[in-house]
């Protein structure tokens, strides 16, 4: 994994380094024994949570909202006397949207802060980069991105519901509902883009829609008109956008330059108020759509929407939207649910990772986005409720409910 491999020039000194590390580890173990080994997660009066999010760089539109949410609700809890009487101690690091940097700051945080769990990061690429570090340290990591991972790492959880349900089934249902017959993919070449492209492949296979082509570009690319021209010439009636953050702006700028009025479907990571702000002048008339969540359209939910989920969404929205004056936002709601799941777990099971995992996989959590039911083999633990929203150009009311599919079929084969 990037950032963890030993550079070649260090191998000659391997024995010396190993000997030194053994001595350091022994000293650390003695120190831990001397302190009773209770530092992880803090004392009984504190809940220590590490937060590694993308506050800068390409994914900052996600990380900034997530961090703002976590800090706002932690402040609220602490002012009210703490979570179940225990103060919350946060340590925050910025991974700069860079997987290698995510590894470094996570490692530093685990060594210096000893959190009970680490929240982060904001994207698939940085979540995956952090995972070997948290697994080696036996610390629960809760990724706010979809970032699925086979259940080989017992300590890794991710915030999003079944990725296939969000990125395949919802998109497929929506595209078929709109009577499209030929669609195209454009996305970035990083881990996030690769995940989207894989899901798009499942969509094509499951629906029988014609594929107008799959265009991939480097995240640093500023002009994608050539890629869009290829998709337009291939007859794409809608685009599946496999990127988030500034990549959405790059693609919509290209569409605007080409004067190509085509509907665009984005991933859940892009359904954020900051993205709305960035693309408000770039929206094609045909619209930009994405998988929505109840908090984003809490005041537009249809009458047949599940009552429990509607109530939880409105509770979140009351504080986040009404009291704090923020626009409704998926990332904010995901961060809010993440924080509450971990706080409840640490408060109930303590800071020891195995006990936390045991608690999380044997209890049900009612969040603003989902009802989470983690199992031993699935640490995503939630189903998707089938909302699709359309972006508006109004930052105060960024999303309009476009469709609700309560009985979505499965197109992903899972």
């Amino acid at each position: 994994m990037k950032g963890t491999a030993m550079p070649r020039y260090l191998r000659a000194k391997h024995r010396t380094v190993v000997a030194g590390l053994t001595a350091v580890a022994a000293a650390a173990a003695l120190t831990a024994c001397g302190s009773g080994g209770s530092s992880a997660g803090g004392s009984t009066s504190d809940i220590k949570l590490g937060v590694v999010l993308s506050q800068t760089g390409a994914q900052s539109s996600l990380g900034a909202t997530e961090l703002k949410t976590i800090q706002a609700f932690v402040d609220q809890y602490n002012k009210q006397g703490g979570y179940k009487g225990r103060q919350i101690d946060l340590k925050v690091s910025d991974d700069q949207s860079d997987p290698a940097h995510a590894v470094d700051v996570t490692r530093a945080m685990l060594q210096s802060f000893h959190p009970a769990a680490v929240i982060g990061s904001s994207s698939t690429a940085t979540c995956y980069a952090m995972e070997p570090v948290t697994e080696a340290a036996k610390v629960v990591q809760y990724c706010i991105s979809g970032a699925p991972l086979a259940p080989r790492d017992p300590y890794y959880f991710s915030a999003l519901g079944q990725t296939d349900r969000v990125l395949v089934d919802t998109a497929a249902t929506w595209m078929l509902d709109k009577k499209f017959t030929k669609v195209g993919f454009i996305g970035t070449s990083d881990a996030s883009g690769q995940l989207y492209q894989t899901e798009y492949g499942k969509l094509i296979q499951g629906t029988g829609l014609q594929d107008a082509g799959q265009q991939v570009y480097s995240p640093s690319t500023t002009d994608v008109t050539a890629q869009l021209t290829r998709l337009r010439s291939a007859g794409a009636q809608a685009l599946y956008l496999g990127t988030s953050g500034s990549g959405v702006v790059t693609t919509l700028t290209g569409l605007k330059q080409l004067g190509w009025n085509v509907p665009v479907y984005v991933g859940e990571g892009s359904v954020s108020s900051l993205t709305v702000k960035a693309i408000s002048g770039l929206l094609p008339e045909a619209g930009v759509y994405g998988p929505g969540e109840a908090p984003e359209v809490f005041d537009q939910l249809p009458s047949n929407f599940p009552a429990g989920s509607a109530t939880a969404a409105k509770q979140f929205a009351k504080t986040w939207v009404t009291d704090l004056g923020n626009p409704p936002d998926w990332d904010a709601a995901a961060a809010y649910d993440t924080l509450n799941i971990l706080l409840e777990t640490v408060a109930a099971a303590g800071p020891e990772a195995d006990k936390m995992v045991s608690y999380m996989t044997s209890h049900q959590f009612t969040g603003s986005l989902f009802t989470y039911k983690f199992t031993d083999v699935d640490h995503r633990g939630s189903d998707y409720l089938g909302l699709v929203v359309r972006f508006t150009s109004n930052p105060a009311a960024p999303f309009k409910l476009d469709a609700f599919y309560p009985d979505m079929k499965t197109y992903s084969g899972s």
Partner: protein
Amino acid sequence: MNDFMQFTIGGLAIGAVYSLVALGWTIVIDVSGIVNLAQGEMVMIGGLTTAYLVGEHHWPLALAMVVAILASGVVSGLLDWGVLRRIPSQRPTSLILGTIGASLLLREVARLAFGSDTLYANSLVSSSPLHLGGVSVLPQQVLLAGVLIVVAGGLAVFFRATRMGRAMQASVQSAIGARVVGINPANMRTLAFIGSGLLGGLAGVLVVPLFGMSWDSGTMLGLNGFVAAVFGGVGSYPAAVVGGLLLGLIHGYSAGYLPTAYTDVITLSLLIVLLLARPSGLSGRGRELVRA
């Protein structure tokens, strides 16, 4: 055919950006021989300052653009006068290290001052695309191409027909000789940095309506500008323009006809081949960056 023309227009449009950035690189390399690795940050400062003044303080766009260009020029000038001149060893490696440090510092200062989000500004011209025979282009891109022509022509006139330009050229050819006739080479170098910063800022204010700008955007724009300068021939102004346009066309055609994930691989591979085959650039008029 329409697709080919669209790839061509798109390539030339992005190539014009690279050319403008490459001209900024070229001034400093031409006058001082220094590879200023903070040049991309001058582009970033120009773009971000414009977007910030317009978006946060509601300045008139034209005024914000002028202030942003001047800000880039001042920062670039200060980089030479306040930092590089103070480095005891004036060897190229020491100076280049100084510019790397300045680059990292400016990125962080920009992040703290402007925030981490990508900022945008409106354009002086219409944002609706022009459609010419099935090919689309934004008026801002036409403006950028026009500015590139004016700047390239202006630089040619400046270095050939003005006393200041000839003084800068003289200090390049012989520092001792220049001092004999009353020209201070150190001041000429600072002027080159100011000019380079002004060009970087100009590129920044012109691209911010197209791509937006964030604290870390300058690095890739600067790198592409440098590649363009090397493509054409380091130290040659016409070659920098040609190199930028060529680089843009390579980007456009490779994205249009080849697997698009390999665009950067193709571009950088071509650069390596070029450096091996023609160290002085395609034009053959540039200087070699490293001599054996």
